[in-house]
């Protein structure tokens, strides 16, 4: 049974929630910098403006990749929120990332090329961890289906009538995933490929050659992505829904804090540290889980 309602809700509500989160992001960053910041609806104004602007392209086909990127993100998020196979969600995320990167390569300027390359390095950096996270969830719940993982599986411990959330079985993976989320949200210290902030060494990096509707679609895709990522954070606490939402928002604020505190790392450091974290926290967690079985 495919839960059509979930998919529909995701399709319609995720951009709204994602946009609001993006606005919240800018306000919180501003307040941390002793500024006032834009109104919370600012991202919607931005996308609306972009939609009305002329679309300039360097190569005629570059926006096609972005359309597929957006479609893949929506499909993946739909899969996740309809409770489907988590591995397929991970592969779908990768597929979406690949199309975004290919679109950036199509931009054919030095800035977009290097931005695309760095985006690719970022994907390589976080990919092992998210795969191990899915595997860890399987080992803890014996299922890859998100719907069943949300219930923490049949063997989850119960305390005072409530099922213990997954995070108690997967603490290393949770922390490792948080590290990778900083990369996926494109925040310092890992905003190597395209930062939302003002000038950076690559102009706009991967998004340099996009404008008008192409850029609007990228922005919307990022909103859908944010909701998906935070949804995955929520999954670790899914048996206690209120706590789950609170933690997801807290993680979001934490990522913004890290963004404002740290300077950007070089890609070598980003890659090495991400893989080290994956091995120690992610693989370590899996080793412990397999020993305990």
């Amino acid at each position, binding site marked *: 049974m495919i839960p059509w309602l979930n998919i529909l809700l995701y399709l319609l509500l995720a951009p709204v929630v994602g946009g609001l989160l993006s606005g919240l992001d*800018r306000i919180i960053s*501003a307040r941390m*910098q*002793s*500024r*006032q*910041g*834009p*109104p919370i609806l*600012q991202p*919607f*104004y*931005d*996308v*609306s*403006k*972009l*939609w*009305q*602007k*002329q*679309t*300039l392209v360097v190569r005629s086909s570059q926006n096609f990749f972005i359309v597929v990127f957006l479609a893949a993100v929506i499909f993946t998020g739909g899969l996740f929120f309809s409770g489907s196979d988590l591995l397929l969600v991970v592969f779908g995320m990768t597929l979406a990332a690949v199309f975004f990167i290919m679109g950036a390569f199509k931009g054919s300027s030095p800035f977009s090329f290097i931005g695309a390359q760095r985006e690719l390095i970022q994907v390589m950096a976080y990919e092992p961890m998210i795969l191990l996270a899915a595997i860890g969830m399987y080992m803890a719940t014996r299922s890859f289906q998100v719907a069943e993982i949300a219930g923490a599986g049949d063997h989850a411990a119960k305390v005072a009538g409530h099922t213990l959330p997954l995070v108690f079985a997967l603490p290393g993976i949770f922390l490792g995933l948080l590290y990778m989320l900083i990369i996926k949200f494109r925040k310092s210290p890992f905003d190597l490929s395209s930062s939302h902030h*003002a*000038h950076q060494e690559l*102009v*706009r990096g991967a*998004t*340099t*050659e*996009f*404008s*008008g509707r192409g*850029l609007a679609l990228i922005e919307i895709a990022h909103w859908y992505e944010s909701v998906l990522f935070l949804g995955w954070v929520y999954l670790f606490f899914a048996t206690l829904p209120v706590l789950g939402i609170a933690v997801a928002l807290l993680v979001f604020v934490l990522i913004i804090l890290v963004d404002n505190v740290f300077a950007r790392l070089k890609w070598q450091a980003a890659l090495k540290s991400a893989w080290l974290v994956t091995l120690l926290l992610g693989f370590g967690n899996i080793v412990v889980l397999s020993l305990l079985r």
Partner: protein
Amino acid sequence: MFGAKKSPWLIHYDASSCNGCDIETLACLTPVYDVERLGIVNTGNPKHADIFLVTGAVNPQSHDVIINIYREMPEPKVVVAVGTCACTGGIFKECYNVSGGIDKVIPVDVYVPGCAARPEAIIDGVVRALAVLEQKYNARKKGVSHDATANT
């Protein structure tokens, strides 16, 4: 659709400025003035920008660059000339290498005088540019284009 006036992204270019106006422009981004309240973002990428903020006068080196950047901006776009040098050439107007203000090269919509232009004036200039921008959006919707260099 909404958003035309509420999301002005700008690209700032120093044509041959002494950096005085540039410093004042960047000061607008700091907490004291905080133009992000108005949704203004300094993008540094012409393809992402609506407002072309130019300081300094035109010389042979910046002549082509101004045209290139202007051309790479998607429609609709406005140009704000910040500082006396950008408006008319300022005290360097008679120099052998200075052609004059920015309007010698591209159409300018708002002139912000001052040497250096004050942040309040710059913000005011950008806000006025927004009004011009809104007109251009409306014109574009009706299918008439005001810009001479559209689609180049």
